[in-house]
């Protein structure tokens, strides 16, 4: 076996507040190999690659590149050494064109290329990955998938020896992902190395040559392609809780929704961020105790639809009626006060205040009407949510910015579900959560919907989630809503087709 291209040895990293993110982790990445790092939320995956990419400095341990110990001072330094990372959220500038964005990163490392040459580079690489984007299009007009592919193209143009994909492919549609795997295989054949971070086991099994599993900051397993299977990995990732993971539909007594219409949407037309029609004449209704799921690829108007229902976005035409009250364009305050929980897109940006602690974040929602906040009961409520959802570290007074992405998501989901008394509007309710937690959260949503007669409307990019949770489902594509469909009797292929055509 060849010597590793890149290794990390005995990496330890502790965060402010004493959270141990990584504990003596060592891994080898060989040339021509596709390595996947798996782990549940807060396992330390992102921290590890951020150390390799020069964003964090480890407390202890070393990074060895081509047999020599190196220090990676910054991301720029990492790029110079041939290590390039693509993260889950595209880091492009919306107002610039594709080529401008790409040239920006290239110039930064000292290649003063003319736009024409950049455009040629982009076309060459783009053709290989199968990305069909006009290089002069403004970034805002592109879909998530296209943006993410541009990010990846950029990484390739930077001539990466080690390409790190931090959940970069997780939310791409399967078709695009497959196309890209072909390219990645070619890429690694040239003696390069690919590292993929994910919490989705099927994604890992699709392509990995080697799988490392992290759990609570420790390396708990290293598997090769032949020995890996879902059950084995789940055991390593979750231990005991692995048994709880399921994609089975929730069955009786959860089957028949009864109750009046809580959420009634009539002929809604909503504009997107740039004045384009994002939601085109959408009508649907949700009854108390019923769960409606909207399947669809990112960027087809789901976000705009949900925001408009909650009151965050102006409705151009149509009505939103919650509990027999017309709330169209009357603001978030009214919908919130009528008992609507809301999990927005990009929860880290819109659903938490990072400089405040968990109790304060909870109080901001629950104590909205009290002049004096009852901190004692808020603290108790926070503790209850922390225990129920296993938020780690279990300290109500910890600043939210010190939690991992998954744990922040758990604080958001638990808070909103607890708050919702009439309806829950959610966008990707389990985004960024690992399988065990996702299963748990979906169970919670179902339980609350049935027990508290909650009307739930959610959109998700994960079709499995929509199929498991919905009593009835719709497909959203380019602003148009198709459906309703019965999740049991409708063939999956039909839904998938509607999503992409």
């Amino acid at each position, binding site marked *: 076996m060849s010597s590793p291209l890149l290794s990390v040895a005995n990496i330890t990293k*502790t*965060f*402010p*507040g*004493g959270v141990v993110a990584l504990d003596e982790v060592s891994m080898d990445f060989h040339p021509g190999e596709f390595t996947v790092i798996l782990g549940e939320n807060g396992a330390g995956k992102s921290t590890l690659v951020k150390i390799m990419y020069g964003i964090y*400095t*480890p*407390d*202890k341990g070393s990074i060895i590149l081509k047999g020599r110990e190196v*220090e990676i001072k910054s991301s720029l330094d990492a790029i110079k050494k041939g290590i390039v990372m693509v993260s889950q959220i595209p880091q492009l500038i919306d107002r610039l064109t594709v080529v401008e964005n790409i040239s920006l990163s290239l110039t930064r490392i000292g290649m003063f290329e003319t736009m024409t040459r950049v455009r040629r580079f982009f076309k060459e690489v783009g053709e290989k990955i199968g990305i069909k984007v006009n290089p002069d299009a403004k970034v805002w007009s592109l879909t998530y998938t296209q943006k993410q592919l541009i990010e990846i193209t950029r990484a390739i143009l930077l001539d990466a020896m080690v390409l790190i994909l931090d959940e970069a492919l997780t939310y791409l549609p399967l078709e695009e992902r497959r196309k890209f795997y072909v390219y990645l295989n070619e890429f690694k054949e040239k003696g390069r190395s690919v590292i993929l971070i994910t919490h989705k086991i099927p994604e890992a099994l699709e392509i990995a040559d080697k799988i490392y599993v992290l759990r609570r900051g420790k390396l708990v397993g290293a598997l090769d392609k032949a020995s890996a299977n879902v059950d084995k990995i789940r055991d390593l990732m979750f231990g005991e809780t692995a048994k709880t993971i399921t994609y089975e539909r929730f069955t009786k007594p959860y089957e028949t929704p009864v109750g009046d219409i809580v959420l009634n949407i009539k002929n809604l037309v909503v504009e997107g961020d740039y004045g384009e029609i994002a939601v085109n004449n959408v009508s649907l209704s949700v009854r108390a105790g019923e769960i409606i799921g909207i399947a669809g690829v990112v960027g087809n108007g789901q976000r705009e639809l949900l925001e408009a229902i*909650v*009151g*965050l976005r102006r409705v151009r035409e149509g009505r939103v009626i919650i509990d027999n009250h017309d709330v169209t364009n009357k*603001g*978030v*305050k*009214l*919908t*919130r*006060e009528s008992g609507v929980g*809301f999990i*927005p897109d990009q929860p880290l*940006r*819109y*659903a*938490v*205040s*990072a*400089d*405040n602690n968990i109790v*304060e*974040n909870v*109080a*901001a*929602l629950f*104590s*909205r*009407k*009290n*002049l*004096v*906040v009852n*901190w004692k009961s808020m603290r108790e409520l926070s503790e209850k949510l922390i225990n129920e959802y296993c938020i780690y570290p279990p300290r109500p007074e910890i600043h939210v910015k010190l939690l991992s992405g998954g744990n922040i998501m758990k604080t958001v989901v638990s808070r909103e579900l607890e708050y919702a008394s009439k309806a829950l509007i959610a966008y990707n309710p389990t985004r960024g959560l690992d399988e065990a937690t996702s299963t748990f959260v979906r169970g919670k949503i179902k339980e609350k919907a049935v027990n508290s007669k909650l009307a739930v409307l959610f959109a998700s990019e994960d079709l499995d989630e929509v199929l498991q949770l919905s009593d009835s489902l719709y497909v959203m594509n380019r602003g148009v809503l198709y459906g309703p469909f019965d999740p049991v009797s409708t063939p999956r292929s039909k839904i998938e087709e509607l999503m992409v055509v």
Partner: protein
Amino acid sequence: MRIVLVRRKKPLKYGGLVVALLSLLSGIFVFTIFAWLIGVNPYPVVETIVTTFIFPGVVKDFIILTLLGYALLIAFKGALWNIGAEGQMHMAFLASIYITLIVFFTTEKSLPFYISIGVILLSIVAAVAAGALWGGLAGVIKAYAGVDEVPVTLILNYIAYFIGDILVYGPFRGTYVYGYARTDLIPDPYKLSIPVQRQLSGNALIDTVTGYIVEFATYAVWIVALILVLIFTYWLLNKSNIGLRIKILGSNPDYLVSLGYDVRKTTVLTFMLSGAIAGLTAALYYHGSLYRIEYPLEYNTASYGYLAILVAWLSMLDVYLVPLSAYIVSAVILGSQRVSSLPSVREAFIRLQLGGAEMAFKLLMFGSILLAYSILRFIQDYELKVVS
């Protein structure tokens, strides 16, 4: 092996206190070095500054700056950089003057107790309202027109100065002012300071102690107000829903939006609270020490409104550290003024052909302190580490 900068896992214990004190010391050190460079014997310079820290004259500035420090603390917690305490104070002065010198003007040497108290309270209420409105105006411009609050509050300061100038030249000009552009003195029954007399004993220590007692007794009403404002600020920021909203506004306004709070209203409210405390301070200052305002208006406050920015920063937005940083700033102002009037300093400036520029000398000390502060503030959060 290499040296790296990493964020501390735990903030330094007593970090805030240590940073404030160390910045002070290094500021004085740099200042002294400079004095030495221009040929002044450093010993009396250091002595003057150090003794100012136990100098009763500091008390007045200390109280005013603490009050204003709290006014700004509230705005700064919401990431609203209110540098308009000056303007808010001046609008409050005008309100108080309208009540005491126009509506309830009297030439009597004494009035029934309840009338005095009533007028003073009315004047304070008017000043608080005026401060809150002037602050709120900045908030409205920020929230509804989207203009950055820093230039807005700064410009509003000058508008307030000029409104005051016009009034002092016109309707507010006093009857007993010998042609000066200024208002009458506040009638005696409306004065808030308590006149205390003492005999100097000649013993420096005893005189200092009695000096402090006299100062605190003179400004007893201010002290009461200061304690009330401290309690209010603590309650607001740590117990109330409004304080929570202000803190979230300072951290992530997007979260406020998705919770259904009105970010604009919160912005205006924060500015109004900040302005209200500045207005209260102005009323106390006017009733207790200033007694009249005169043209040009900006000289009436000794830049308290701007110094308060320093106070708020130096306290690192910690409710408990505001009084400490206010004391430091007051001592430094007074100390640097005293240093500037040392004969050796005057001589040195004349030698440098900069006679008359001594007062600008004190800015150097502020600069040194701020510089040291920014460095130390960084060290509080980050540490140098050797990684092998």
